[in-house]
């Protein structure tokens, strides 16, 4: 009755199986490290409040005309391009660390955006997009009735 089969019924944890499971879990956690991941550009910060959200992104040196902001339902798309420095033919580069080119970033928000009231500002190289929540989507306070 108390033969070796009790291990199989899971009453006592098999220490060896447990170790293998742990090893697999660790491998899974660390498998992503060291592999190149395409970073999403631009990096955004999202501020949330009761009436909506504010999305900020650091986009230095852009032409505000070249930033495209579009909203569809609950998604916001920021697209644009930064022109590389206009250098003359006799200019030679010593350092070239700044990046240029076009980008697109789409964010999904947890509410529907009121496309009419959306506001975008571009100051000091920082893009600030204010996204108000749709009136119909506003949280409703439910009064609890007592007896």
């Amino acid at each position: 009755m108390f033969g070796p089969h009790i291990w199989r019924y899971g009453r006592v944890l098999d220490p060896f199986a447990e170790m293998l499971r742990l090893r697999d879990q660790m491998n899974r956690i660390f498998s992503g490290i060291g592999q190149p991941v395409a970073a999403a550009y631009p990096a955004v910060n999202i501020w949330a409040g009761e009436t909506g959200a504010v999305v900020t992104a650091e986009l230095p040196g852009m032409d505000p005309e070249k930033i495209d902001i579009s909203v569809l339902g609950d998604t916001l798309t920021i697209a644009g391009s930064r022109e590389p420095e206009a250098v003359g033919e006799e200019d030679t580069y010593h350092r070239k660390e700044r990046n240029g080119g076009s980008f697109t970033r789409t964010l999904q928000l947890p509410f529907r955006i009121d496309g009419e009231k959306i506001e975008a500002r571009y100051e000091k190289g920082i893009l600030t997009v204010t996204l108000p929540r749709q009136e119909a989507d506003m949280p409703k306070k439910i009064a609890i009735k007592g007896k």
Partner: protein
Amino acid sequence: MEKESKDLKKQEAPVPEGAERMRNRKVYVPKVDIYENKDSIVLVADMPGVDENTVDVTLEKNVLTITGTVEAVRPEGMNLAYAEYDTGDYQRAFTISDEVDKDRIEATVKNGVLRLTLNKAEKAKIKKIAIKAEH
């Protein structure tokens, strides 16, 4: 081998050994482009969040230091729900050679980009020597 992709994240500046910063803020190294032509050296630095009042350029001996202070802005009535970047100050220093005319350094800031034009001193400009053929 040159790295194909550039790091898009902001890079933090190293803290000098044995010293701490006065302001308890993060300090980043602005990304720069430096190019040179026969009259000047142009330095372009990405410093989002700075304007002409918050950026400082100092020249001491041969060290050109760029500092920018950024005040964190917080939209009213909002809480930060998701963050991918952090705001902080900027600092970076370069040594410049004697060929730069120290009295003629021009600096402009536009859309968070600092542009420094370091004009070369007259004597440092390359003089082309004409070579005559002898017959």
